[in-house]
C-alpha cells in the first residue's frame, strides 16, 4: 500500500494534541529503516527528557534514582570497567548460547527420529520449563564449582527450552504436501530430514535463537550473582553495595547493549541463512 491508497488501516484521523510531533514526522521519509530509527529515537529521547525533568523538578537524590545525566557521566567515567567486565559475561553468554541451543536442537532431532522418545520426554521438558531457572542457579553452582561452568550452565539452560520447543515445532510443522512428495519419491527418513525438515525448521529455530540470545545474557548475569568476581553481574551487585546507582544503571544498560548486539547478530545471520520467504507455500 502507498499514498495512493485511501487509508484503509485508518491510522491518522484523530490528531490528538501532538500536532507538533505530527508536523515533524511529516518531514521524515514515509517508511523504511531510517524512519523507524528516527521515530524510535524521538520516542526514546522524549522518555529520557521526561526522566531528567522528574529527577530535576522533584530533586530526587541520585543515590535513589540517578538522572540520565548522572548515568551518562557514569558511562563516561566507567566505560573501561564496564567493557572489561563485559568480556567474561559475553564469553559465558556465548558459550551458554552455543551449548544450550546445540543440545536443544540435538534433542529435537532425536525426537524427530524417534517418536516414542518424544512422547516420553517432551511433556517432561515442557513441565521442567516452568521451573524458575533463577531458582536452580545455586544448585548448579554447588554441582559445577566456582569457575565459568555454572554461569555457562545457567545461560545454556535458559536457552535450551525456547529452542527445543521451536525446533520440535519446526521439524514437525513441515508442509504435509512436501512429506507426501517425499513419500512418493521413496525418500528415507534421513533424506526427508536433510532436504525438508531441516530447512522447514530453520525459521522456527531462528525465532527461538532471537529470544534465547537475549535470555542467555540474563542467564550469565544471574550465574554471576551466585558467585563471581568479574562480569556484568558482579559489577551490578557491587554497584548496589556501593550505593553507586549511576553505575548500577550504566551496568544495566551495558547488559541491555550486549543483548541488543546479540539480537542484531542473530538477525543478520537469519537474513543470510533464510533466503526464501518462510510464509509462502510454493
Amino acid at each position, binding site marked *: 500500500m502507498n499514498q495512493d491508497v485511501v487509508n484503509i488501516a485508518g491510522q491518522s484521523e484523530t490528531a490528538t494534541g501532538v500536532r507538533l510531533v505530527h508536523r515533524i514526522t511529516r518531514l521524515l521519509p514515509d517508511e523504511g529503516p531510517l524512519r523507524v530509527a528516527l521515530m524510535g529515537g524521538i520516542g526514546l529521547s522524549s522518555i529520557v527528557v521526561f526522566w531528567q525533568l522528574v529527577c530535576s523538578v522533584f530533586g530526587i*537524590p541520585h*543515590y*535513589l534514582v540517578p538522572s540520565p545525566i548522572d548515568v551518562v557521566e557514569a558511562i563516561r567515567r566507567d566505560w573501561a570497567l564496564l567493557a572489561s567486565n563485559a568480556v567474561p559475561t559475553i564469553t559465558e553468554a556465548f558459550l551458554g548460547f552455543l551449548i544450550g541451543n546445540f543440545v536443544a536442537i540435538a534433542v529435537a532431532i532425536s525426537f524427530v527420529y524417534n517418536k516414542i522418545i518424544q512422547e516420553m520426554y517432551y511433556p517432561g521438558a515442557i513441565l521442567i520449563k516452568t521451573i524458575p531457572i533463577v531458582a536452580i542457579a545455586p544448585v548448579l553452582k*554447588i554441582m559445577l*564449582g*566456582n569457575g565459568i561452568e555454572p554461569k555457562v550452565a545457567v545461560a545454556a539452560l535458559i536457552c535450551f527450552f525456547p529452542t527445543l520447543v521451536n525446533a520440535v515445532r519446526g521439524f514437525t510443522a513441515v508442509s504435509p504436501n512436501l512429506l507426501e512428495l517425499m513419500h512418493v519419491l521413496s525418500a528415507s527418513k534421513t533424506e526427508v530430514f536433510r532436504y525438508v525438515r531441516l530447512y522447514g525448521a530453520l525459521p522456527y529455530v531462528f525465532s527461538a535463537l532471537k529470544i534465547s540470545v537475549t535470555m542467555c545474557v540474563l542467564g550469565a548475569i544471574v550465574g554471576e*550473582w*551466585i*558467585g*563471581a*568476581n568479574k562480569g556484568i553481574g*558482579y559489577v551490578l*551487585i*557491587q554497584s*548496589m*553495595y*556501593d*550505593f*553507586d546507582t549511576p553505575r548500577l544503571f550504566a551496568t544495566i544498560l551495558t547488559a541491555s547493549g550486549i543483548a541488543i548486539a546479540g539480537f542484531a547478530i542473530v538477525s543478520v545471520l537469519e537474513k543470510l541463512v533464510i533466503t526464501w520467504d518462510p510464509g509462502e507455500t510454493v
Partner: protein
Amino acid sequence: SAASKDVTLQLAWLPNAASAGEIIALNKGFFDEVGLNVTILPGGPSANTIQEVLSGTAEIAIGYAPQIMYAADKGLPIISFGAAFQKAPLTFFSLGEKNITSVADWKGMRVGANQSSAPQIAVLLDNAGLTLDDITHVQGRVPALLQDQVDIVATWPTNVADIALIVDHPGGYNAQSIWDNGLQFQSNYYIALKETLQNEGDMLNAFMAAVDKGWAWTADNQAEAVDILVEFAPALQVDKETPSLAVIIEEYIYTDETLESGFANVSRDRWQQTLDRYAALGEVKDSLTADDVHDGSVLAAVPRTKRD
C-alpha cells in the same frame, strides 16, 4: 498509649535469630508500650537495606559496618545510633586436614566469601603481611568447602546450618574470626537518617528502649522466643534457630562490655580504628571519623539492660 507513631524497621537479612530481639519487641507489644506502631520489613539477598532508609521506606534499618562506612564515604545522610551485636561474627573456617591455623597460612589458598567481604579479607591479610594477590577470592559456601572447591570459607558461627556441616567433619576444623585477627567492628547496627536523629530523637530513644526490652526478654525466654520467630518467619526451623539464638545471645548480644555499658553499646574507638584500617587500604576517605558513622546521643539518653 494514645496516638502511637508509625515506624518502619528494615531488617538487614531474612528474619532469623539475629533479629530475634526486634521481632520479640513487636510480638510482645514492647513497641506499643513506648508509643510506636512498628512494622518490620524483612531483608533478603538482593537488597541493600540502607537504601530503604535513604528512600524513606523505613525510618530505621539494621545494617553492617562496611555498608555504613561506604555510605558515609559517599556522604549519604545516614548515621548509626547503636549496635545489637557487640562483635562482628564473620569467621573463616577450614577443614582440619588443611592445617590452616592462622591467617598467615592462607597464602595460596582459595578463600570462599561474599563479594562484599573483599575489604575485610584484605585487612586480615594485611595484618598477616599478605595481600589479596596471595589468595584466590571466590564466592563459595560451606558445601564448596566440603567438595574441595575452596580451602577456606567465611560464615557466621551463628549460622547453624553452615556450622553443622563443618562440626560433623571427621577431620575436625580450624577457624579464624575477623575479630581475633585485627578487625574489630560490631554488627547489626541501628541506622537512621541524620535528620531523623535530629528531629525525632525521642522516637529513636523509645525504639531503643523497646528493643532493649525485647532482647532482654528473648535472653530470658529463648525457647518461647524461637517459637515466636518461627511464627513470624515460617520457613525457619526450630532445631536450627534454637542453638543459633543461644550462641547469638551468649557470644554477641550480651558480653562483658554490655555488663558494663549496657545493651547495644558502641565503641567509638573501634569505629575509629576500623575507619583507619579501611582508609589505609584506600576503601574510604582518610578524613572520615567516628562521628561520621556514629552518634552516641540515643545510647546516652536511654538506660539499657546491663548483663552478660
